[in-house]
């Protein structure tokens, strides 16, 4: 299997300028993170708010440059700070955001939302753009009828399907999913997770799945990286990390995750009766 994405010692600092009474300071959002993902696999990045997982997502999606460190996509070193990005390189990575209510333009029709990446990045003729948008709509479980509708006419799960369809329009190799199901209901979450699994099989997609929900991560991930204050405190295959968490933060995280199995309910009720 070929390695699609490799990160070597990524660092990102944010400089906060000082004022009359305040000193300038530097926030170290990422403190040297390294990992690699093979084609068709899913890497899950877990951590709480403020741990740098979204900063990492922005670097991987080529929105923000890293302060130092190397980012390789399909073995090719990419540095957006240098400004030598070609449209072909941009096409390889796409992102799906957390909140489907905020990430779709309310004044654009679904068809236009899906065709926009093609208009911006390629010179596909109009009728072919339309055909490809229609095909993609069906791929994500919507119908041709939805083409001329506006985002407000859809439920949260359907909107997330549209956001996924938009991300796939340019046939990317790598999809960064920033908490794609945390705004969705349980039943809809299952549908979207299934859709992601189907699409991964069909297009040999590689996912970087950012999440704080460990039960979802255990279900979908091949590899897991746990982040804490900008550092990767734990990185390994899913089974390794879940069976034998090494770092104390990972252990805290596992202990804090509510369990929905009968045995733990029995244990809790017994403890309550004894008290």
């Amino acid at each position, binding site marked *: 299997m070929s390695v699609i994405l490799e990160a070597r010692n990524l660092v990102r600092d944010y400089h906060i300028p000082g004022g009359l009474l305040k000193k300038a300071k530097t926030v170290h959002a990422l403190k040297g993170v390294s990992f690699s993902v093979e084609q068709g696999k899913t890497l899950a990045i877990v951590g*709480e*708010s403020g741990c740098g997982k979204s900063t990492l997502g922005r670097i991987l999606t080529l929105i923000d440059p890293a302060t130092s460190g190397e980012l390789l996509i399909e073995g090719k070193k990419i540095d957006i700070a240098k400004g030598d990005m070609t449209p072909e390189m941009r096409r390889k990575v796409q992102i799906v955001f957390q909140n489907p209510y905020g990430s779709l333009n309310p004044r654009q029709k679904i068809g236009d939302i899906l065709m926009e990446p093609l208009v911006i990045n390629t010179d596909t003729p109009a009728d072919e753009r339309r055909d490809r948008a229609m095909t993609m709509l069906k791929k994500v479980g919507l119908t041709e009828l939805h083409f001329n509708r506006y985002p407000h006419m859809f439920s*949260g799960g359907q909107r997330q399907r549209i956001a996924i369809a938009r991300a796939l329009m340019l046939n990317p190799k790598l999809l960064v999913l920033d908490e794609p199901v945390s705004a969705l*209901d*349980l*039943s*809809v*979450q*299952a*549908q979207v*997770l*299934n859709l992601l*699994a189907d699409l991964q099989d069909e297009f040999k997609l590689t996912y970087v799945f950012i999440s*704080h*929900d*460990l*039960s*979802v991560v*255990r*279900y*979908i991930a091949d590899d897991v990286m746990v982040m804490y204050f900008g550092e990767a405190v734990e990185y390994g295959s899913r089974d390794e990390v879940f069976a034998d968490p090494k770092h104390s933060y990972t252990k*805290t*995280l596992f*202990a*804090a*995750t*509510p*369990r*929905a*199995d*009968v045995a*733990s*309910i*029995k244990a*809790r*009720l017994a403890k309550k009766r004894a*008290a």
Partner: protein
Amino acid sequence: MALLEIENLVVEFQTASGPFRAVNGVSMKVHEGEVLAIVGESGSGKSVSMLAAMGLLPWTAKVTADKLAFNGRDLLGMSANERRKIVGKDIAMIFQEPIASLNPCFTVGFQIEEVLRVHMGLDKAARRKRAIELFEAVGIPDPAERLNHYPHQMSGGQCQRVMIAIAIACNPKLLIADEPTTALDVTIQKQILDLLMKLQAEHKMGLIMITHNMGVVAETADRVVVQYKGRKMEEADVLTLFENPKSNYTRALLAALPDNATGDRLPTISELFVDEGAAQ
């Protein structure tokens, strides 16, 4: 006697395309010292039914019920003035977004003392003392100092602690927590749930936990009501619900948990269950 009794509650909203039934004939009881969880997806009417009980719905909502009583007193027949004396004092509520539910213009100290002034009529010194006590009870470090802070100076978890402190300020008999941990990280969620359970046990409060997270239900509830599209699908004690769910909807909901995934794909919930609800 039950603390809160709801029988055949119906809530309708007037919309441009006719009345919309958000809650359709829901009945439930909460006893003293009991933790009742209401589970359901968005649009299942779980928040609306509790807002109806609190009397917090806008005037566009039409609330009818065969019985809506708190501690044996009829809530629907009572005047708005009388009702305000109960709501906030004997029944308190915690909302989902802690940062949005605090007033950004006032210090958290002012907001907690406001409750004590209105409902308990304490004087200034006594209010201050009680506020510090409450902040200590919910685990806010350095309470005297923290009272002078504004909500934006605190984290989400700290704001939720402030909300809990305000809710328990008058020793309510019933506490309604509407998705109290949905906006929080798992580690903070654990702390807040532990805190709620500790306070509930200490004060022998009735606690209604509204949530869509099955894990939270499993960790907190004594009894569970499952709602779907404004109807009650099932009511059972927590162990029975997880071990032996009766309704198909509950079974599908449990199967859709990624924890219980067996195969390659997760089973999904279809629209089938609307009819099942109508039959009950």
